[in-house]
């Protein structure tokens, strides 16, 4: 079933400079990575989905509702967007209040909102920071507070704008956990990513934006095997893919385990 339908959408911030040039996409529940050069229109695209911007042409449907006619607030229970810059999102004086704000605003009672906020904070590993001022946290933690704030609203559609910025190994694991949880619940997760390794490992579909158009849309193995296209779009193949090809493999490997298995398999026939 289509969760998000995008029909021939155009958008420009200033006249004569089209940022999106006729995007048509259909999203079911498959987790989707959006990749592309800086300025390709990725963030603009997700702001349109979230209703923060309205298309200059074309239509967007979120769970069957026309987003063109709805405010961002009316869309909030269904679709959540974690901003790229956490300082654009954070405004309360404690982490717990920050994370409770969303659920309270979509009609949750205080007790329920608190429970959801606490669960979301646990998921991202910030339970101990609940009473701190979010502005005092480091960038990576602020980003996780923003993720938790949206997770606590339990939207059907979750969009993460560059979630892996500033994250260390533990932070990456927390983001991975959030994505997995949404997938298990059959919910749609979209992520804008510059980390190709992370995109290859964690998403079922990859959409490539280039200068306001979609130039590829397929499963990760297919997209990451198209090197010249990625090159043109300002991207690179994942490190593990590159290593596999450099070793003469024809396949497109997406994870360490896949390549190691291949290297072991051939190694053993030699012996």
């Amino acid at each position, binding site marked *: 079933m289509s969760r998000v339908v995008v029909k021939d959408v155009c958008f420009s911030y200033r006249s004569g400079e089209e940022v999106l040039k006729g995007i048509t996409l259909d999203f079911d529940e498959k987790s989707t990575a959006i*990749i592309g050069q*800086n300025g390709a229109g990725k963030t603009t695209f997700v702001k349109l989905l979230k209703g923060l911007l309205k298309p200059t042409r074309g239509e967007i449907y979120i769970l069957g509702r026309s987003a063109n006619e709805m405010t961002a607030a009316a869309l909030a229970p269904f679709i959540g967007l974690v901003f*790229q810059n956490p300082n654009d999102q954070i405004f309360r004086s404690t982490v717990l209040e920050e994370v409770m704000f969303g659920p309270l605003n979509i009609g949750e009672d205080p007790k329920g909102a608190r429970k959801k906020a606490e669960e979301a904070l646990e998921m991202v590993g910030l339970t101990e920071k609940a009473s701190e001022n979010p502005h*005092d946290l480091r960038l990576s933690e602020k980003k996780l507070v923003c993720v938790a704030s949206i997770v606590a609203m339990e939207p059907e559609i979750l969009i993460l704008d560059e979630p892996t910025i500033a994250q260390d190994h533990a932070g990456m694991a927390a983001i991975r956990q959030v994505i997995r949880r949404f997938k298990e619940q059959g919910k749609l997760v979209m992520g804008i990513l510059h980390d190709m390794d992370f995109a290859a490992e964690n998403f079922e579909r990859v959409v490539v934006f280039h200068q306001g158009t979609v130039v590829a849309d397929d499963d990760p193995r297919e997209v990451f095997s198209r090197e010249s296209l990625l090159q043109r779009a300002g991207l690179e193949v994942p*490190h593990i893919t590159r*290593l596999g090809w*450099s*070793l003469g493999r024809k396949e497109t490997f997406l994870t360490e385990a896949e390549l190691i298995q291949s*290297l072991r398999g051939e190694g053993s026939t030699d012996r």
Partner: protein
Amino acid sequence: MSKIRVEHLKYRYPSSEKLALDDLSFEVDEGEMIGIIGRNGAGKSTLCQAFVGLVPHFYRGAYGGKVVVSGLEVLKSSVSQLARRVGIVFQNPFTQVTGSKWTVYEEVAFGLENLGVPRKEMIDRIDYALQLLGMEKYRDRHPFDLSGGQMQRMAIASVIALQPEILVLDEPTSQLDPQGSEEVFRAVHRLREEGMTVILAEHNMEKIARYCNRVMLLDGGKIIDFASPASVFSRADLTRYGVVPPVYTRVCRELNAKREGSPHFPVTLEEACEVLKGR
């Protein structure tokens, strides 16, 4: 002669009871590129700020030991004196934008104006920095109308225009697309070849392995290791410090593939190919 000398540096933020930097001593030579790694909270950003004097002059707090950069002792020098020798690119580019300028071009000029650089030279340096970062076409944009990645490029250009002797980069390309990030690293590499000393805090271990000649592993404000990338990334206990080595090292470790006679695992694509080819 060493470009940076740190002796028993200890530092505690005013609101904290724990040392953020706990007795660090090391030296960095001119033209080195040092990668600082470690989990978030290990002290990477704090150490970066200690090179430019924001620790302790801006943040205050308790400070002990000595940091000498380009012959200036940080504790006894003002931030503006230090700014002539050491430039820093902050982790979050939004933090770096002055907010007092209407165009990218003027934003890059800001530091130069404050140093009183002559107009002609200013123009040359701004043009060079914008071109180096591929930002010429956005020169008339408002700084806050840029995308995150463009803002990050502008922040780097602003600091490079100052021509510091030491360049401190705190996750400088986190919001750049893969090719853009690689371009920035190549640009920094060129500056290093011209003699600039570079300090880089970064989570992208593949980049660290490729571009840094030494790696400092921090944890809990202490130096755990400070050695070649191959040596640090070959440590069996890295994950204990919240760090995962480059993917090349992980694959080679799993297959126990080392170059003949070397105690270390490969850390770059080329090295990994060399030991794995024929498999």
